[in-house]
């Protein structure tokens, strides 16, 4: 039995920040991470090889529903921050006030958050590209200018040289920032550890049972006796672990995602930059609809055209002229995460409403309209019975017949599976992440956002996690 003061489960943006904050405040911190520690640059960024190594299930897990939604979860030290696009949004006062009011969350005004956001922005070197953005990113800017739609360059956590172009930045992931800081302040970070369950007694977690992987096929059990537990395993694994441990109240019932439809756009010029993603987004329709660019290596182009890629083989053969774009929406429908006995992966289901379907089709139409306005010669939306769109008239015809079930949907933003708030009928955790009805177990990751925010969520997740750490250290109840 290992006695620890604070046990942090998961080392993604929520867990890494929690570990650093608490260790730097003098707490004895122990971090458990299921995946491995992989240095930035070991795998080609945004490649299939990286998906294989740094995502759970090689980045292809499915939320069941009609239609199903393919989702990706980072796995390994640093979690999603090691593999995502690195796009940062500071949570704005409108979003925070709206959440505070609708979900009965205390102390969530901009004033409560802004200092935390500033510290995170400094630590992660959040900034825009000093030099040139990628040609695939310029496409979005150009299309927006042609249509009169607002676009913006979204800042990223990157260290750039004074005149660096987009591809030359160094990503400031958790393994480069908060995890080393946590270690510096005395935290222990153990990788290759799967947490099996939390053991509860009364209002407390008294023990945490885990399995340490030693070599393929060889493992040993580990037992921890923590004073405090922070569950930061992400919006799928956090509720699954809590359910396995018998903590089920409002856990896993309100998963929210931003479903995305994608399209490959082909241009006269070479626009593809396989190892970087566009930094421009269309903000005109925020927060309902967001349009941006995705990682577009040749393999990923093929994946987007699957299962009909053979019909459009010239697109992947001529991949330098093509790039992938997405349109993401907020949804009225929700998902569920349900831990299953004897299986590692929980069952994830997602129910989209008719209105969600209409918004997704509308989002797809607006995205293609933008791509044509930016000069695309051909657009291939990722839909059942894939088609090649050459003109605006082709888009009109497609839009008239597209139904929700025809869309190939995927998502990378998973949240809200253990939502925070004081309304115990809806919320799984209180305004600061403590699980209702328990004294020493908290959630501090994407799970506690009350809904999907309509933008890349990592900046919001970290700011709220940082605020929760401050409340914990101050002894707030």
């Amino acid at each position, binding site marked *: 039995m290992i006695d620890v003061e604070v046990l942090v489960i998961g080392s993604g943006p929520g867990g890494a920040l929690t570990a650093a904050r608490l260790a730097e405040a003098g707490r004895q911190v122990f971090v458990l991470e299921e995946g491995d520690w992989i240095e930035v640059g070991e795998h080609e960024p945004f490649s299939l090889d990286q998906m294989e190594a740094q995502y759970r299930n090689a980045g292809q897990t499915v939320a069941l529903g009609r239609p199903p939604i393919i989702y990706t979860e980072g796995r390994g030290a640093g979690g999603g921050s090691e593999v995502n696009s690195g796009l940062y949004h500071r949570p704005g006062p409108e979003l925070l006030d709206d959440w505070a009011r609708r979900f009965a969350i205390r102390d969530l005004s901009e004033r409560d958050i802004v200092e935390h956001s500033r510290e995170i922005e400094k630590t992660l070197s959040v900034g825009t590209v000093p030099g040139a953005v990628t040609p695939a990113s310029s496409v979005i800017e150009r299309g927006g200018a042609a249509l*009169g*739609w607002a676009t913006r360059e979204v800042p990223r956590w990157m260290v750039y040289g004074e005149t660096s172009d987009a591809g030359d930045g160094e990503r400031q992931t958790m393994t480069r920032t908060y995890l080393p800081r946590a270690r510096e302040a005395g935290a222990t970070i153990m990788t290759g550890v799967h947490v099996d369950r939390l053991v509860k007694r009364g209002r407390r977690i008294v023990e945490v049972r885990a399995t340490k992987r030693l070599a393929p096929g060889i493992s040993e059990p580990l037992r921890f006796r923590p004073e405090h537990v922070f569950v930061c395993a992400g919006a799928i694994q956090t509720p699954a672990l809590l359910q396995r441990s018998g903590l089920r109240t409002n856990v896993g019932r309100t998963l929210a995602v931003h479903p995305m439809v994608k399209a490959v756009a082909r241009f006269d010029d070479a626009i593809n930059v396989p190892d970087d993603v566009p930094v421009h987004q269309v903000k005109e329709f925020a927060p*309902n609809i967001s349009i941006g660019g995705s990682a577009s290596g040749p393999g990923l182009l093929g994946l987007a055209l699957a299962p009909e890629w053979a019909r459009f083989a010239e697109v992947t053969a001529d991949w330098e002229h093509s790039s992938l774009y997405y349109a993401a929406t907020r949804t009225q429908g929700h998902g569920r995460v349900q831990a299953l006995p004897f299986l590692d992966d929980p069952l994830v289901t997602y129910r989209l409403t008719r209105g969600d379907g209409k918004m997704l089709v509308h989002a797809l*139409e*607006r995205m293609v309209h933008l791509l044509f306005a930016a000069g695309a010669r051909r657009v291939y939306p990722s839909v059942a019975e894939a088609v090649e769109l050459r003109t605006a008239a082709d888009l009109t015809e497609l*839009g008239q017949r597209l139904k929700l079930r025809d869309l190939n949907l995927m998502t990378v933003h998973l949240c809200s599976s253990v939502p925070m708030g004081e309304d115990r009928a809806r919320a799984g955790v209180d305004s600061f992440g403590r699980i209702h009805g328990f004294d020493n177990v908290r959630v501090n990751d994407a799970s506690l956002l009350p809904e999907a925010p309509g933008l890349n969520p990592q900046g919001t997740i970290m700011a709220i996690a940082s605020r929760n750490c401050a409340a914990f250290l101050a002894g707030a109840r």
Partner: protein
Amino acid sequence: MTHTTIVTGAGGWLGRALLASFSGVWGSGDTSIGGESHARDGVLRALVHTANEVAGVLVVAEGAEVHVGDMTDPEVLKRLFEGADGATVIHAAGVIHPKRASDFVVNSVGARAVVAQAITTGVGRFVHVSSNSPFGVNSAPDDVFRADEPYRPYLGYGRSKMDAELVVRAAVDAGDLDAVIVRPPWFYGPFQPERQTSFFRLVRRGIFPMFGAGENRRSMVYIGNLVDGIVRAEQQADATGKAYWIADARPYPMTEVVATVKQALADAGIKVSERQVRVPRLFGDLAEKADGFLQERGRYQQELHVVGELNKTIACDISAARADLGYEPTVDLAEGMRRSVRWCLDQGIEL
């Protein structure tokens, strides 16, 4: 040389409002109707579809040359455009609620014929009056259509008005025509037809169906604001090839539209029912489906079509018209509805 202004669809709601404004009948001190006067010198030429519309045009513009005929008939158009090089053309003719769904095609065929004749004649600015229908319905109650959006035509009318816009755009792209497209949503105000009057009556009796909570929004345009927008589109030199939403300043929730009409009626001393019929949202969706089903089979049923649209949000953003044309809607829903009710009463229309 005197300037000529040609208005098609002159016997309709908008056509009569335009001519009344151009002739000076509307707006010049006649506060019982209100609205902006755009009185102009020169020749007013009006095209109406049938002879029984002629009197209605002459009432509002007694000096107008009225031509009677089908806008798809080249002989009719030839006479209408005779010697009219350099003229302003306001193409406001269209079929909204036909007897058969196939009749919608008149909108695109008519636009093609009128545009062809306008090119042959060598007219000046051509203002094409379109609609929200080529863009369908918004995908969320807080969504608004921007000036530049993908076409998503709503059933037969939407498709015909989209095709008409495409005809105009092709002529502009070929360098043959100096055209601007104006897109009004649902309008209201003086010269209103019977269908709008029956809307008022349903509201007065409390039996106008409100779907769900009525939180869906509709952009509307007071007809005087629309006339002003059209004149600005006619006069703005660098607007060739552009398309603009011309509407009131903001979209109105359906609940507000109904409440405002009730208030305007009550203020005019008309007894208004206090009840309000509410209908589950589902019925609107069913009506939409039934409308689509019938239209695919060549039939058109006005009530079904209108009910199918009632629970939808159809909202647009006028900021491009504000920025490029200097358009500013001066009459809002409350004032506009008051003027509409007064106009009806002045005409002896029972509400």
